[in-house]
């Protein structure tokens, strides 16, 4: 199997990672598509130096997050049509149940975080240990723990605020 085929197979298997990063960092469909393409290309470029020291999924997370954080948009898009706060399957307000509303509020609050905090939350949701998150982000595990506490408090407050306005 040549390198490109091997890479494509691995990427297809782990494509959820790329989709997650795109969904988290981009509000609009077109931007998500552009970012998806960019992550795929950057991952392919970096794949030549992938030695298998870490798991492919961990390596792909690092590439995807680096690309998303430094992504340079081609042009300004028209105003947001569909934001991360809007769950595609969201139902009308009168039928929404409290759990769904809370989930939507949490999703909106995560969407409002800084690029770095979003990356940390994403890795936390993936159940990576603080030590591993620190290695991927280039900071200490202690720093990750402090940041994670602050992020959780912030998300709790923001979610509550959002729920109060609904």
């Amino acid at each position, binding site marked *: 199997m040549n390198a490109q085929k091997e890479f*494509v*197979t691995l*990427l*297809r298997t782990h*494509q*959820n990672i790329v*989709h997650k990063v*795109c*969904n988290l960092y981009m509000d609009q469909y077109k931007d998500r598509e552009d970012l*998806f*393409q*960019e992550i*795929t*290309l*950057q*991952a*392919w*470029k970096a794949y030549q130096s*992938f030695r298998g020291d870490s798991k492919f999924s961990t*390596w792909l997370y*690092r*590439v995807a997050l*680096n*690309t998303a*954080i*430094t*992504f*340079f948009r*081609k042009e300004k898009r028209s105003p947001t049509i569909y934001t991360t706060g809007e*769950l*595609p399957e969201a139902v009308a307000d009168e039928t929404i149940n409290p759990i769904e509303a*809370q*989930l939507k509020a*949490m*999703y909106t609050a995560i969407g409002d975080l*800084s690029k*770095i*905090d979003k*990356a940390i*939350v*994403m890795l*936390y*949701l*993936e159940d990576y240990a603080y030590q591993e998150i620190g*290695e*991927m*982000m*280039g*900071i*200490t595990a202690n*720093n990750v723990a*402090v*940041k994670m506490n*602050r*992020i*959780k408090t912030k*998300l*709790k407050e923001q*979610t509550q605020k959002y*729920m109060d306005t609904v």
Partner: protein
Amino acid sequence: MDLDQFKNELNTKLATDHTHRSDADFEYLLKQKTNSFIDKIKRSLWFEIIFGFIINFGFVYAAFCAGLHSFRIYFGVFSILMYLFLFFLIYLLLKTNKIRNADLPVKSNLESYIRLLDEFIKRYLQLTMALIPICIIFSGTLGYMDNHTNQALAAAHASPKMSETVQIILAVALLIIVALGMYGMYYFTKWYLKKLYGNFLTDLKACVADLQDT
């Protein structure tokens, strides 16, 4: 309501809200062009290097073929300066080509991008600003020299004769215009570079600040 409470739901939501892609889709994507800022800088550098070499052929031609001695010296010196500038652009291009950081830790990746962009903006501004006074002062000096060596120019300049006061006023006015032009050029170049990369650089620096120890 806590993040941990929704951990599974959020993770599932983020992972499932998309269209599944096949091998053929990925193979198609691998044939597309990248749009990272590194590639934007590379394209910009390539354009400037090619354009610079073409323009410099004109300068070299003028240095050998211009009628006036001052023109030959001016274009000769300017083409040497342009070659230095082009070598600097090539150095930046090689440096940019070496950056393959996508799999580094986020902080190291951001820091190397910031270093590259900072250097690009700083050196670009320095070189552009250095060329302007060199051009103006050098052309003025050579023009003055030619005025004394070229009979036709000297005659045109001598008649009608201006009073000393008018000559001083004209010289001061010229100096003010040159100074204002340079001042304007400095701010224009700074504005242009900020428009191109400044906001992006600020964004990257904010990310690094966000990663500092708390």
